[in-house]
């Protein structure tokens, strides 16, 4: 009976010990992925900001400018691309809607971002675009890979349509979480006009050709990343756009089209932190809690199995005879 129990314990010990590395190095890379149906919105604000009044072509100070960013997973498109890509793919249809202090549109920029669901590496397929222009991204955008490392990454800047390094600048604490701080600076770069602008009757794609006035942009982008999930828990951007030269500026060299320090709205920071904390627990289950727990359990069971085996092999104890009383003289 003891022997049987020892063998069962041994089988369980091997089972749990083997599960430990299998979960961490086989299951985790295959199970940890961005769901293709994810829907997420984000609100960022610049208080105050400078905005160009297109009526007078004069920059003016405004109390607030709001950026509403939506990411929507397109499941049908991801399934279509997966058939040829041969891997799990996520397709995010994104929209950056920029609203002035009155809530009216300042510009909107749609994007289609296609990437590997596990590694976040970009996947190139028909439909990948920024503001209707076909692009081929390099680097990450919006989110870092799971188990983010303390190193620089390549980050895609959709406004400038270019990839530049985003530098790891140290570890910080944010809302009780240890996060990695990253920073990227895009120097003044000539960029296309957004296709949708508050200029009724004017085709912004022909604006530069017709007037000679071009759009320029610079930004300093800051992200605080949870290293376990790779999700940003906070983001800021010091963003500037200028119109330069041409007939539109009536003799001036340049005019500020937009300038402001854009920060995540407090309620969105709260909800993002809560979401990241719950996802972080799931990732830690597969990378840490379960592998270490199973390894410990496996070793305990192995010890028990060996102990039972040793006991079953011990020879039966000799029963001592009761002492015989000495005969009376």
């Amino acid at each position, binding site marked *: 009976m003891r*022997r049987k129990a020892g*063998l*069962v314990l*041994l*089988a*369980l*010990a*091997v*089972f*749990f010990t*083997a*599960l430990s590395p*299998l*979960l961490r190095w*086989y*299951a985790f890379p*295959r*199970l940890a*992925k961005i*769901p*293709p*149906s994810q*829907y997420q*919105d984000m*609100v960022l604000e610049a208080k105050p900001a400078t905005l160009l009044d297109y009526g007078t072509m004069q920059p003016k100070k405004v109390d607030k400018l*709001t950026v*509403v960013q*939506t990411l*929507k*997973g*397109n*499941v*049908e498109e*991801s*399934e279509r691309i997966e058939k040829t890509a041969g891997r799990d793919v996520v397709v995010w*249809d*994104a*929209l950056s*809607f920029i*609203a002035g202090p009155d*809530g009216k*549109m300042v510009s*909107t920029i*749609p994007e289609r971002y296609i990437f590997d669901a596990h590694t976040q590496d970009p996947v190139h397929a028909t439909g990948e675009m920024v503001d209707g222009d076909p692009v081929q991204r390099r680097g990450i955008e919006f989110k870092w890979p799971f188990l983010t490392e303390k190193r620089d990454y390549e980050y895609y800047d959709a406004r400038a349509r270019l990839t530049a390094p985003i530098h790891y600048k140290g570890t910080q604490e944010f809302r009780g979480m240890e996060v990695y701080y990253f920073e990227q600076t895009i120097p003044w770069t000539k960029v296309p006009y957004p296709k949708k602008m508050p200029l009724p009757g004017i085709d912004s794609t022909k604006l530069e050709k017709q007037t000679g006035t071009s759009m320029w942009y610079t930004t300093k982008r800051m992200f605080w990343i949870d290293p376990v999930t790779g999700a940003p828990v906070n983001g800021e951007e010091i963003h500037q756009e200028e119109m330069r030269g041409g007939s539109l500026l009536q003799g001036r060299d340049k005019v500020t089209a937009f300038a402001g320090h854009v920060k995540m*709205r407090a*309620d*969105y920071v*709260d*909800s993002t932190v809560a979401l990241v904390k719950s996802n972080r627990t799931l990732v830690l289950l597969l990378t840490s809690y379960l592998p270490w727990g199973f390894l410990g359990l496996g070793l305990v069971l192995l010890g028990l199995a060996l102990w039972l*085996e040793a006991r079953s092999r011990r020879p039966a104890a000799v029963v001592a005879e009761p002492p015989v009383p000495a005969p009376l003289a």
Partner: protein
Amino acid sequence: MRALIAAAVGLVAAFALVLTITAIGAPSGETSPKPLLTTVPAVKK
């Protein structure tokens, strides 16, 4: 010999479990019916 068989059973069971879980994977779900936002959402409570 019995101990070897018991260890092999444990090992095979671990591989079978992990391979099954990873093969099943997570469901894809459906594209959200919610629109891409073109208004500023109210403050969340």
